[in-house]
């Protein structure tokens, strides 16, 4: 149903020079989902993110549910930013936080507090709820919680994958005023997930990995160099 979705025709060629500028706004976190081919795609992104990158990234990558994951080791070896597995109730920290196998990961804010720009009050929550669209962790569960907790101050990214997880979640982020980016289906090793996300959310950016990475770096600069008064990270 989405094979001829017009949005993907806007996907720029590998040079990316001719595409419209990617949208920028101050955000407090990037949430990212990837499935088949996703580890390789994340390695490409991580290799290009500088150590100075402080915007928290929370990622769901579909991996086998029944054994411990080596993702932290594999991705951490290539990354200049911190890479860790999500722990329940931990603060949202700079670096890449990955959902553990067989748990959903959600964002939440402390009880009695409402979210303030800067994400100092945002925590991770793990859940053992039923599989969602055959997935646990589910990209949709993470994205929907991010839309609810962060509203417009989040960017959602959907990369390569062979299923449709992430499509409703990315739509929720868009509906809450957040920013959305999807890997060009033509570049993705598995195009079904990007195509579903494009059809569902009409993202502001459909681009190959290197442009998505540049955009993430620009988001980080927009946030750290911006005029927002409540953006701090002490490390």
């Amino acid at each position, binding site marked *: 149903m989405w094979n001829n979705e017009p949005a993907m025709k806007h996907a720029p060629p590998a040079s990316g020079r001719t595409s419209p500028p990617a949208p920028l706004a101050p955000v407090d976190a990037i949430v990212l989902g990837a499935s088949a081919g996703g580890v390789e795609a994340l390695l490409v992104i991580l290799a290009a993110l500088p150590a100075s990158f402080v915007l928290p990234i929370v990622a769901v990558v579909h991996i086998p549910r029944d054994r411990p994951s080596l993702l932290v080791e594999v991705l951490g070896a290539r990354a200049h930013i911190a890479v860790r597995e*999500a*722990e*329940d*109730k*931990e603060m949202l920290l700079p670096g890449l936080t990955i959902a*553990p196998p067989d*748990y*959903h990961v*959600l*964002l*939440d*804010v*402390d*009880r009695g507090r*409402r*979210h*303030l*720009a800067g994400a100092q009050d945002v925590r991770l*929550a*793990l*859940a*053992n*709820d*039923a599989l969602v669209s055959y997935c646990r962790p589910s990209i949709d*569960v993470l994205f*929907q*919680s991010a*839309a*609810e*907790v*962060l*509203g*417009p*101050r989040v960017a959602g990214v959907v990369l390569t994958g062979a299923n449709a997880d992430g499509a409703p979640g990315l739509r*929720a982020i868009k*509906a*809450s*005023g957040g920013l959305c980016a999807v890997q060009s289906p033509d570049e993705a090793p598995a195009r079904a997930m990007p195509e579903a996300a494009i059809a569902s959310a009409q993202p502001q950016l459909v681009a190959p990995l290197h442009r998505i990475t540049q955009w993430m770096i620009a988001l980080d600069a927009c946030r750290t160099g911006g005029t927002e008064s409540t953006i701090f990270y002490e490390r």
Partner: protein
Amino acid sequence: MNAGDGQSGESAFDIELTLLLEAIFQRYHCDFRGYAKSSLRRRLRQAMDRFGDASLSALQGRVLHDARALPILLDYLTVQVSEMFRDPTHFLALRRDVLPLLATYPSLKVWIAGCSTGEELYSLAIILAEAGLLDRTIVYATDVNEEALRKAEAGVYALDRVAGFSANYAKAGGTGSLSDWFTAAYNGVVFDRRLRRNVVFSDHSLSTDGDFAATHLVMCRNVLIYFDRELQDRAIALFEQSLVPRGFLALGSKENLHVSSRAPAFETFDGRERIYRKR
């Protein structure tokens, strides 16, 4: 429906969520006010669909005026997802490292807090039986969801889940065959009643109820992740009061004590398997 109003205040949905939990507490004395909001939002949206209510306020009116709605809603407020020997290495560590220490006591008390539909209870009962300890053990199996407790007591599970249970049992160091412990009938299996002969099933809330005296092992897996930090602290304090000195606390594979203010009362026994020991 979302936090799109940014910094101006809580969303209407979150306000309704707080009020719904308060209403359920005042009307029925079931306290979910300390539950983590993140996954409640998702499951209560599903409950709205189930009842056909357009808002949580409408659902609140329904549950206040119709007590029959409460048990249905409880299935959305609590999570009944479980399997036998989930995380087999955890049960292997209990079997290999913890049970030999427990075997030195003449009699044992074990508390399974949040036993849900019983998968974890039968898993633990089987390794206790295979270690020759079940006959001198009293097991308290507690949950806030009475319907789930009834299922736990029945010990009947769908046949299509048993292959997964059996594979986990083997990985958890099972000494025989899981089929030694159940009888197949129709499309289900029923677990051996000997496994629950010394089990006391009890409606118990970690939010409002007290502890069980002098337990040697408390197992509470994938329950604390659904609590906010305040309620996590309360629950861990109950476990601490409940345990004998040097008693064991077994948590879920992604739960840890270090975010709790009660952490100093425990030492880590097996960090990877999240097994702690009271100091």
